[in-house]
């Protein structure tokens, strides 16, 4: 392994890249377009009742049970009663895949009967604006009708049950764009090396460029390493552009910490190697493209790129957990949004082990020369 040769090859990669206007456009303008497009689109969602988790601290008093039954009857929400440890309700919602939640306080029935003021607390996921709207609508409709029934006397109504401002799932207030940024950085960490490495692996073989290189002292791992370094650099630029665009266009607030760096290194490392491996096992450029797509497409949509994995049905969540990109995006979520370094470290460990294995396999199977 000679850094001189890696550097020489890196110069070739960057020159080829900068002299290709289409490639340049896609890496600089595409991140902005993605952020703008998805930032605008995803304030609108689909219909159907929203599954909400309810912690009934009033121990199933008849009034609280009637309240929940009324909620179910709105057809806007489906109630599931849960019992999470005190103080962890909002965190548990996210972990258990709920996009909305409700806490009914202890003494709810008594307060309602005494007509003394009592609050129910609503939790929603800002990533899922539709679910949030449906939940808030359903809760306020039921609350209003119960208030009407309870407290209208003498010509004026005194509300009994109040709804304080909705709280967000998680410990802090996030908007969809905040979640979108790590997702889309992950998206470009995946797609830009995968598509181009699959293409390069098969076209360089067809054009005999690997053959030319095999006649020089450049080794396969040096060659692959220079591509990895290139895509790491590109990822830094892309991530910078995406964060900048998110902040400027949508006022996103994400944490930019050093904890992000390991993911910006290991992500491209993994997907350059994986793209090379996919391009290597394919016999023709056409089959290479097919294999590349089979690997790339599920990850593009199921790893938390555009939608939070926690919003998926359970079986899709299980699928997401075997996709390498999930750990890249989850890791970035942990450092950029949730300040959860332990979980980020775990994600980083998973990707690193995988990246080392895939790199070794790519170097092992990819052939400079014809073995026949």
């Amino acid at each position, binding site marked *: 392994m000679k850094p*001189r*040769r890696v*550097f*020489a*090859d890196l*110069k*070739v990669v960057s*020159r*080829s890249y900068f*002299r*290709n206007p289409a490639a340049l456009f896609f890496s600089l303008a595409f991140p902005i377009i993605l952020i703008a497009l998805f930032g605008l689109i995803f304030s609108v969602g689909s219909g159907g009742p929203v599954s909400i988790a309810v912690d009934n601290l009033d121990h199933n008093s008849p009034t609280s049970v009637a309240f929940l039954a009324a909620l179910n009857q709105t057809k806007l929400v489906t109630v599931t009663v849960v019992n999470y440890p005190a103080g962890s309700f909002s965190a548990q919602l996210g972990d258990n895949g709920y996009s909305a939640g409700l806490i009914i306080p202890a003494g709810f029935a008594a307060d309602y009967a005494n007509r003394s003021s009592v609050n129910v607390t609503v939790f929603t996921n800002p990533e899922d604006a539709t679910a949030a709207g449906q939940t808030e609508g359903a809760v306020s409709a039921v609350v209003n009708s119960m208030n009407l029934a309870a407290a209208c006397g003498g010509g004026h109504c005194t509300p009994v049950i109040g709804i304080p401002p909705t709280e967000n799932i998680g410990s802090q207030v996030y908007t969809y764009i905040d979640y979108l940024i790590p997702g889309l950085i992950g998206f470009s960490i995946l797609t830009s090396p995968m598509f181009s490495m699959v293409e390069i692996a098969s076209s360089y073989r067809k*054009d*005999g*460029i690997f*053959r*030319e290189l*095999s*006649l*020089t*002292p*450049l080794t396969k791992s040096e060659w692959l390493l220079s591509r990895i370094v290139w895509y790491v650099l590109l990822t830094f630029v892309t991530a910078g552009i995406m964060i900048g665009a998110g902040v400027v266009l949508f006022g996103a607030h994400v944490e930019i910490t050093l904890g992000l760096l390991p993911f910006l290194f290991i992500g491209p490392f993994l997907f350059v190697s994986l793209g090379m491996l996919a391009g290597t096992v394919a016999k023709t450029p056409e089959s290479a493209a097919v294999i590349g797509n089979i690997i790339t497409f599920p990850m593009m949509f199921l790893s938390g790129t555009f939608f939070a994995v926690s919003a998926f049905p359970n079986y899709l969540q299980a699928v997401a957990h075997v996709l390498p990109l999930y750990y890249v995006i989850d890791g970035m979520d942990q450092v950029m949004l949730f300040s959860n370094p332990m979980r980020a470290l775990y994600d980083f460990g998973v990707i690193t082990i995988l990246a080392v294995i895939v790199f070794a396999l790519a170097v092992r199977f990819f052939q400079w*020369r*014809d*073995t*026949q």
Partner: protein
Amino acid sequence: MPNAIEVRGLTKRYGPLSAVEQIDFNVEAGTVFAFLGPNGAGKTTTTEILEGLRRRTGGDVRVLGLDPWTQGYALHQRIGVIPQDFRFFEKLTPKEGILYYGSLFGTRPDPKSLLARVDLEDKADSHFDTLSGGQKQKLGLALALTNNPEVCFLDEPTTGLDPQARRSIWEVIRTLRREGRTVFLTTHYLEEAELLADQVAIIHHGKIIASGTPGEIIRAHGRPERLVFDAPPALGEYLHSTLGVATELRDGRVEVSLESNRDALRILSAVDASGLPWKGFSTRTETLEDVFVRLVGPMDDGALKSEVPA
């Protein structure tokens, strides 16, 4: 001089198909060796085995004393290879390409002088995808020289080039030889081999059917020198009946084989005595091409491109 290349019993099979069968030859260091054969005869397979790009099925091969397959990495530092139809990074210029190869090999090539050697100075800063076929081939040659190789492999370096480009590549090959390098050349063009090569081997159906200097091959496989008369066929019959010599009608001309120089005088006297009209005569010695066509045979018609456009 020691041998730069030694090949013993080299065999290459693709499944049941035999591409090269038990071939032997040596290439002396500092000489130009031309490897000839029609398409599909096993030329490229053999060349790629020597370059360490392909694995052999049997036999032994040494290039500069190294086994090209198992010691390829060491060998590649000491050889230069220009494949057929050289391709390179499209957006790189010849100058950048040479500096790139220089960094890979750890040499410090001077792009200007290397490009001057192959007559490509004026394209030093043009992108590879804008170069003509001949210019691409010349860049391949320049790149193959960045590591100052002891042995140069040139696989059909002039195929498809215009006569001028071809001549400038010939000149580079001559210079390589003068510098003491060994050149292993494969070509379709027999004139090229005859002009440049010290030694020639002809491969056909995976076997070497003739080898030696071009002169040796012509003497061994060619026909004797002949007199050619621009005259009516009757002259041939006359010479045959009066002198008993074998005559042949070829391209509308009468050809007579010469066993010795004294024959020439007898035949010319007889022609004069015949009283038949004749416009002129010439002597004809067989070229490597004539021999090649006879050995490889007309059944490979079309596979062979022996004419070199002037």
